[in-house]
């Protein structure tokens, strides 16, 4: 068996009952052809990047399932006929999957690991760097520089004027 993933869009004006009906129908198609639904995830209403059938929003549903190529053909045929489904996209995730192993290896543990790693790695260096920089900037140089700059500007401005005047005279 192969593992497939289908992302499809349901009409935005469909009610919860409609969504449930679509879910039951699609799951029925897969299980009816000896396929196996691994996950059925309704991602909620999102705005579309472009209008499909004059709609600019839609309910996105991501479904992960196992089956043979005929299952995909039958599923897509049903989706084409169903007016509630605006568009669909099927992607093959893996060849030759044993259906017994799949339900056990849901992708949840991976995500958790990723999140903890990210949380542990990222914040530490950033904060340290930020604090060090801020401390370095704030402490001494600013005041000194400010005073020095003001003094320098005051000193320079008459000189600049003088030099300009001199240039004019020379011309």
């Amino acid at each position, binding site marked *: 068996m192969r593992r497939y993933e289908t992302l499809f869009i349901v009409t935005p004006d469909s009610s919860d009952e409609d969504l449930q009906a679509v879910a039951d129908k699609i799951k029925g198609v897969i299980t009816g052809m000896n396929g196996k639904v691994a996950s059925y995830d309704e991602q909620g209403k999102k705005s579309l*990047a*472009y209008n499909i059938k004059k709609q600019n929003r839609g309910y996105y549903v991501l479904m992960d399932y196992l089956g043979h190529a005929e299952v995909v053909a039958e599923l897509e045929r049903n989706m084409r006929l169903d007016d509630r489904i605006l568009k669909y*996209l099927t992607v093959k995730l893996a060849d030759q999957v044993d259906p017994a192993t799949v339900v056990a290896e849901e992708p949840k543990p991976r995500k958790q690991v990723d999140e903890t790693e990210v949380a542990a790695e990222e914040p530490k260096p950033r904060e340290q760097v930020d604090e060090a920089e801020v401390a370095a900037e704030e402490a001494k140089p600013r005041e000194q520089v400010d005073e020095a700059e003001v003094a320098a500007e005051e000193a320079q401005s008459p000189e600049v004027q003088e030099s300009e005047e001199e240039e004019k005279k020379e011309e």
Partner: protein
Amino acid sequence: MVAYKRRRRSFPRRKVCRFCADSNVKIDYKDPKLLKYFITERGKIIPRRISGNCARHQREITTAIKRARHIALMPYTTIQPH
């Protein structure tokens, strides 16, 4: 030759493919937030010589963007200014 050298100087930094540098980031057509860094304002795919991706990851990005366009997560084109 001079003009050629000057052009090269204006892009001194050789960009490293960010997906090779960080293997945690996975290219997925369902993630338009990531993919939108690789399209222009008009919605065109940014070429490899500018994005700095390696060939393999640019290919993955390209297929991902095309899939995302098909399922309306990303635009084929934005509305043209008149």
